[in-house]
């Protein structure tokens, strides 16, 4: 089982299994938990929900007399058709519609943050290892570790308070100003960027340390290999050794942890969004928790999980393309 295709298929199989696990968890959790959230919902919405919606929800939460297996298959069928039920907070909008409004914002915010943090952190880490014992190597890791010890959302709170309210440098709520409407206009793009600087900035700051440390420690090892030593002996210019010999080899472990970091950063992004009132998945998650909107909550879990799985698969494919050793 060597070569690119079999490995790719095996990874695909793994993600299919993980997707199935997420789907099944989503089905099992409400049924295993003590208490009956569905009953509470029914009690609250008895008057306002029409009987058909109530029935649909009963099936979704397993409060029906049909055997569990048929419920499970019905659930899988509904989910495959994009049928996730009706949101209670945003009643009567279907969950898919509610989630759809926030998905792009989260992907944008988390995507920009994780890529910027990865590039900047890895570059700093490479530099710290290259100038080992230099000022960046001595100050960088502990300083960023200290910043990274703060919860993402707490850094966000401080940023909102200090840079937003006190100094008034940045807007502190929503993803774009009230004076522009979404579209491909320059005014909207400018407003969007202004609104993204603080949330993305705090997330980059909080996650920079991890990248710096991973890259630095791998680089230290790579710089010590015979290949790099030989490059020095051949008299290659230092910048060529740095970029073509050391960084290229040291990137791979960082890339591997990139896949894993997506989940972490996304979790951090969800909480950061809440602080900024950024209209993404995190904000919806908060609404769902506050309003005990279980259908929305589960829909969010499902979409976020699937997004993370897809992103991880992307990183896997990239790693396979870049590192022949992984094609085993």
């Amino acid at each position: 089982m060597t070569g690119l295709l079999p490995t790719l298929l095996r990874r695909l199989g793994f993600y299919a299994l993980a997707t199935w696990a997420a789907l099944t968890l989503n089905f099992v959790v409400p049924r295993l938990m003590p208490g009956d959230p569905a009953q509470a919902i029914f009690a609250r919405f008895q008057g306002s929900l029409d009987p058909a919606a109530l029935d649909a929800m009963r099936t979704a939460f397993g409060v029906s007399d049909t055997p569990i297996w048929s419920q499970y298959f019905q659930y899988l069928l509904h989910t495959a058709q994009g049928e996730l039920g009706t949101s209670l907070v945003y009643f009567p909008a279907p969950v898919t519609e509610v989630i759809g409004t926030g998905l792009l914002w989260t992907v944008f915010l988390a995507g920009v943050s994780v890529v910027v943090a990865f590039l900047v952190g890895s570059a700093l880490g490479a530099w710290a290892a290259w100038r080992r014992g230099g000022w960046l190597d001595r100050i960088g890791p502990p300083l960023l570790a200290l910043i990274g010890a703060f919860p993402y959302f707490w850094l966000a709170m401080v940023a909102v308070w200090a840079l937003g309210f006190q100094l008034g440098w940045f807007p502190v709520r929503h993803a774009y100003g009230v004076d522009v409407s979404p579209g491909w206009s320059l005014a909207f793009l400018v407003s969007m960027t202004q609104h993204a600087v603080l949330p993305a900035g705090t997330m980059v700051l909080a996650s920079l340390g991890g990248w710096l440390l991973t890259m630095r420690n791998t680089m230290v090892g790579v710089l010590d290999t015979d290949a790099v030593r030989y490059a020095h002996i051949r008299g290659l210019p230092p910048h060529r050794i740095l970029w073509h010999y050391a960084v290229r080899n040291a990137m791979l472990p960082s890339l591997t942890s990139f896949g894993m970091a997506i989940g972490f950063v996304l979790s951090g992004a969800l909480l950061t969004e809440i602080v900024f009132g950024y209209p993404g998945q995190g904000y919806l998650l908060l609404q769902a928790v506050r309003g005990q909107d279980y259908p929305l909550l589960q829909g969010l879990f499902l979409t976020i999980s699937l997004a993370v799985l897809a992103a991880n698969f992307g990183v896997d494919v990239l790693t396979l393309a870049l590192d022949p050793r992984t094609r085993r």
Partner: protein
Amino acid sequence: MMRALWENPQARAGLVVFGAMLAVALVGPFLVADPDAFVARPLSPPSMDHLLGTTGQGQDVLAQTVVGARTTLGLGVLVGLLVVAIGSVVGGLAGYFGGKVDELLSLLINVSLVLPGLPLMVVLAAYLPAGPGSMAAVLVVTGWAWNARVVRSQVLSLRKRDFVDAAIVAGESPLRVLVVEILPNMASLLGGAVIGATTYAIGAQVGLEFLGLGDLSAITWGTNLYWATNDSALLTGSWWTFVPTGAAIALTGFALALLNFGLDGVTNPALAAGAGTGAPGPQPTPVRRSP
């Protein structure tokens, strides 16, 4: 080992700071005022009477931060230990038996690792009755896999050593070989794992409580931040309601990170200054991130 750790400046700083936090958590609550009592005008800034000011409910911020240390650190350390214990058993069994058992358990570990933590925690916490027991359960269920993976790869390599074969030939049961023979040989790795898992448990717990999941009537670092936002601390500029708690969380996390760096430096020869042995040495313990 403890001596080497103490002589490492990073580890020592970490030990001192974390020890101080633990001391505050243990003794502090007896020394401060009632954290629930209404003591002064809501959102009054720090003064001699109330060193860190008051919350939006007119409670003493210092008292809340100190009492929060006890609840948050207590649960954090407990969950840290539990997570590593479960991770060691699952990862240990996978590494020890290898073959089909390993394949199955590794699959389970990898699937749990790839699913994003926070959304799953939120769903679980939303369905469970609020309280420390539920919180611990949620954190353990979503956190065990990381350590299982680290332990598995280490056990996999220790499994091939002669002393393990000797123990098996002597007729010891697999669980005994794992717990008595193999795991003690990776004490520093497990120590690092407990430190990492505690950091994770504190961060995740604070994040969940900030979302409003958890027992909102209890006083923890997470609920402190939840109430600070709810009482519009940001809008009114009442920095004293959220800065002390955040600083305490960061100080704890930083102390644990320093301790882990120190542990790595002491036990991992590749990172020791001036070491040069050729091939890329063993990788440092991966840094785990939590929201």
